[in-house]
C-alpha cells in the first residue's frame, strides 16, 4: 500500500513537472514585449531624449469634482456654505514649453461652484459661482550653472512635511485648509547659482507680496473684541496693492552631500498677519455719563509689518529612517517687553522622521514634533483693567489696552508656547489600487491667559482612502475634521469654534467624495 502511494505521488510529481516544463519551454518573453509595445502609441518610440533637448510642448490637465457633506451641525452649520464645504468642479490646465534651456510655464484654474451663495441668490448671478485663477505663469532660463526665472511662481523651501517654518515666500489660502493651505503664486524673480554639484545659492526678489487669504474677517474680530466701542466703519485695511513697501527679498544657501543636506536662509519678509494701528486716540464723551468719557481711536488701520526671518534646515538618513530639522526665527520690529504695538519675535521649529515599512516598502509613516515659542509673550489679559483704562487716565494707557488686547490676537498668537505632533501614515494595497492614509496634527498651547479658560488643545484630522482603478484617475473618500477643546470657569469641556486657530474651522467639518482625473501630452519636434 505504501509502495502504491509512492508510485501515485511520483507519477503526480512527474506529471506536474512535465506540465511545468512544457509551460516553461513554451514561453517566449519576446512575445510579451511585442504585445506590450503594440499597446503603446506610435509617437512613444520616437523623439529626443536629451535633458535640455530641442523644442517640446507639454500640455496637462487635472479635472475634478468635490462634494462635501457637512459633519458639524451645531450653530446652523448643516449647509454647504464656506469655501471648504461648497461642491466644486475644478479644472487646471497647464502648458509647458521647453526650447533648449528656456522654459515657459503657464497654469490656470477654472472652477465652478453651482451651490455658491452668490449663484443661489435670486438676485445673484451665475458668473459669481465660477472663477478663473492664474496659477504658476513664469519663464525660466538655465544657462550653465544658473537658473533664472521670472513671473508668478510657487516656491518650496524647507525639508519638513507641510509644516515648514522657512517656507514663507508665497502667501497662503487659508480658506481651504487650516493645516495645509494652498500656496498663492507670487510675482517674483529668482536666480539660483550652482557653483558645484554640492552647493547652490538662491536669491529671490518679490516686488510686492500680496496678503494671504483667510476665512476670518479681522475687522469683525476687532469690532467684536472692543465690545462695539470700535465700529467697523472705523476699520480699514492698509493698501495692500502693488506697493513697493511690501517688497520681499531673500537668499538661501544649500549644501547637498551623500551624508546630509543643509540649508541656511534669510528673508526680508512681510508678516502674513495683520497688525492694527490705532490713530488719534482721544477722549470721547458718553451721552449717559456727563463726567466720564471713553478713550477711543479715530480710526484703526490693519497693516502688514516687516519681519526678518533667519532660517535653516538639515536632513539626513540613518538606516531606513529619514531625519530632519527645520527652524526659523522671525524677528519683528518690536522694541521690548513694553512694546505692544507689534508682535514679539518668535521661533518656529519642526523636527521629523519618516520611514517606509511593510513588504516592498508599500507603507509610509511620517512623524513630526512641531512648535512655536514666543519669548516674552504677553499672556496677561488686559481685559481685567479694561474699564479703568478706558475711563481713566490718558490716551497712552488706552492705546496700551487696545494693543495688548488685539495685536497678538490678529496674528493668531494666543499663547507663548505651542507644542504639537503631526503624523501621516499611508499604506498601498494591491499595487496602489487602494491607498488608505491618515494625516493628523495635535497642538497643545502653553503660556496663555488661563484665568477664566483652560485650553486642552486642538486636533486636525484627515482620514482618506484613495482608490486608483486606472492610472491618473482617483476616487478619494475622506473627511476634514477640526476640533479644539476648552473649559471655561464653572463650565464643562466644550468645543471652541471661534477663537482657536484650528477650532475656528470646526463649522467646516465635512465628509467628502472627490473624483480627480489627470492627463498630459507631449508634442516634440
Amino acid at each position: 500500500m505504501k509502495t502504491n502511494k509512492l508510485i501515485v505521488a511520483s507519477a503526480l510529481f512527474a506529471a506536474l513537472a512535465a506540465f511545468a516544463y512544457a509551460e516553461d519551454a513554451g514561453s517566449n518573453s519576446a512575445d510579451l514585449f511585442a504585445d506590450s509595445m503594440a499597446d503603446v502609441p506610435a509617437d512613444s518610440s520616437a523623439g529626443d531624449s536629451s535633458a535640455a533637448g530641442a523644442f517640446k510642448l507639454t500640455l496637462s490637465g487635472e479635472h475634478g469634482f468635490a462634494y462635501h457633506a457637512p459633519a458639524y451641525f451645531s450653530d446652523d452649520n448643516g449647509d454647504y456654505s464656506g469655501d471648504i464645504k461648497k461642491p466644486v468642479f475644478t479644472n487646471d490646465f497647464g502648458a509647458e514649453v521647453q526650447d533648449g534651456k528656456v522654459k515657459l510655464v503657464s497654469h490656470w484654474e477654472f472652477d465652478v461652484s453651482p451651490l455658491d451663495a452668490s449663484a443661489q441668490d435670486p438676485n445673484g448671478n451665475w458668473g459669481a459661482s465660477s472663477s478663473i485663477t492664474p496659477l504658476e505663469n513664469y519663464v525660466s532660463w538655465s544657462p550653465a550653472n544658473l537658473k533664472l526665472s521670472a513671473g508668478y511662481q510657487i516656491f518650496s523651501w524647507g525639508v519638513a512635511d507641510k509644516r515648514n517654518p522657512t517656507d514663507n515666500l508665497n502667501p497662503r489660502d487659508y480658506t481651504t485648509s487650516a493645516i495645509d493651505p494652498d500656496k498663492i503664486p507670487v510675482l517674483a524673480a529668482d536666480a539660483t547659482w550652482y557653483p558645484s554639484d554640492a552647493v547652490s545659492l538662491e536669491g529671490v526678489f518679490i516686488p510686492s507680496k500680496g496678503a494671504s487669504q483667510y476665512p476670518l474677517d479681522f475687522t469683525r474680530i476687532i469690532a467684536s473684541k472692543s465690545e462695539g466701542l470700535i465700529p467697523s466703519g472705523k476699520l480699514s485695511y492698509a493698501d495692500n496693492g502693488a506697493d513697493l513697501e511690501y517688497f520681499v527679498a531673500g537668499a538661501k544657501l544649500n549644501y547637498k552631500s551623500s551624508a546630509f543636506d543643509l540649508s541656511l536662509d534669510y528673508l526680508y519678509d512681510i508678516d502674513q498677519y495683520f497688525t492694527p494701528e490705532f490713530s488719534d486716540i482721544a477722549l470721547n464723551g458718553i451721552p449717559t455719563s456727563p463726567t466720564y468719557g471713553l478713550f477711543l481711536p479715530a480710526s484703526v488701520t490693519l497693516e502688514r509689518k516687516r519681519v526678518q526671518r533667519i532660517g535653516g534646515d538639515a536632513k539626513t538618513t540613518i538606516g531606513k529612517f529619514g531625519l530632519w530639522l527645520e527652524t526659523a526665527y522671525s524677528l519683528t520690529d518690536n522694541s521690548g517687553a513694553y512694546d505692544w504695538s507689534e508682535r514679539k519675535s518668535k521661533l518656529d521649529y519642526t523636527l521629523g522622521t519618516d520611514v517606509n515599512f511593510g513588504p516592498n516598502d508599500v507603507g509610509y509613516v511620517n512623524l513630526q514634533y512641531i512648535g512655536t515659542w514666543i519669548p516674552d509673550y504677553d499672556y496677561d489679559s488686559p481685559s481685567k483693567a479694561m474699564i479703568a483704562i478706558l475711563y481713566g487716565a490718558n490716551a497712552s494707557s488706552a492705546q496700551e489696552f487696545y494693543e495688548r488686547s488685539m495685536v497678538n490676537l490678529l496674528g493668531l498668537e494666543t499663547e507663548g508656547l505651542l507644542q504639537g505632533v503631526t503624523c501621516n501614515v499611508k499604506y498601498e494595497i494591491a499595487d496602489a489600487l487602494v491607498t488608505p492614509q491618515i494625516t493628523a496634527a495635535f497642538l497643545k498651547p502653553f503660556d496663555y491667559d488661563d484665568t477664566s479658560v483652560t485650553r486642552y488643545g486642538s486636533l486636525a484630522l484627515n482620514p482618506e482612502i484613495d482608490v486608483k482603478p486606472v492610472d491618473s484617475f482617483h476616487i478619494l473618500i475622506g473627511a476634514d475634521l477640526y476640533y479644539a477643546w476648552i473649559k471655561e470657569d464653572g463650565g464643562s469641556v466644550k468645543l471652541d469654534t471661534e477663537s482657536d486657530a484650528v477650532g475656528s474651522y470646526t463649522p467646516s467639518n465635512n465628509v467628502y467624495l472627490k473624483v480627480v482625473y489627470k492627463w498630459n501630452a507631449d508634442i516634440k519636434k
Partner: protein
Amino acid sequence: MKKLLAVALTMSLVGAAFADAKGDEIAHKYYNLKKADDTKSTAIMTLIDKAGTKKVRKLEIFYRETAEGKDAFMKFLEPADVAGTKFLTLSHKGADTEQRLYLPALKKTRKISSSGKDGEFVNSDFYFYDLEDKKFEDHAHTFIAENVTINDQAFAGKKFSKIEMKPVAANAPYSKEIAYVSQDDNFVYKLECYDAKDGALLKTFLFVKVENIKGVLVPTQTLVTNHKKGTKTLLALTDPQVNTGVKADTFSVQNLEQ
C-alpha cells in the same frame, strides 16, 4: 579511514576554491565588457499585475560612466500621475550610492535612504537597489555550472555559465543572485534574486533583447518577474543611443530641480 576522510575533505575544499576562482573569472569577463561612456534612450515601462492588468509608464533614461562608477538620470513623461518625477543616482567610490527623487507636486527632492533600497521604484518590480551601479567587488562569486540553457524561446540555442553572486553589502535586499552568463558574449542574460528575508526566490530578471551598439552590449528589453507578488515589469528602450556625449550637468541636482 581517517586519512580517506582527510583526503576527501581536502579535495572538496580545493574544488570549492577552484569553483570560486572560476566564478570570479566568469564575473570578471562580464564586468570587463566594453562599457559605454554614456547612453540615453526613451523607455516604455509596462507594469503587469497579478490579474494581467497593464499600466504603462514612459520615461527618459540617461547613464554615464565616471571614475566613481555609473551615474543615472531618469525622467518620467507619462502617465500624468508621475509625469515630471525625476530620479538621480550618483556613484561614489568607497561610499554608498547617492539616490535622490524629485517629486514635482511637492517641488521637493527626496533623498533615498541607503538601507531603504528594497523600496519599489514607482511601483515597478525594480527596487532602488536594482538601479544602483554594481561593481565586481560588490559580490562574492561562486561557479555553479556551465552549458546551462534558459527555458525561454528568446534564448533558444544559447549556452550559459551559471554563477552565484552573494552581495557584500549588509543592506542588500537579496541574499544571493544567480547569474546566467552567456558563453558567447559574457553578458548576463538572466538573474535570479533571492529574498534576504527568507532566502526564497523573489525576482527574476530576463534580458530578453540585448543589442550591440558601437561595440557596447545594451539590454533593450528587460523583463522582471516578482515571484512573490505575481507581478511583472517590462522595460523596453525604444531608441537607445551610445556615446553621444550626454552633458555632465544632466547628472546633477540642478537638472533634478529644473
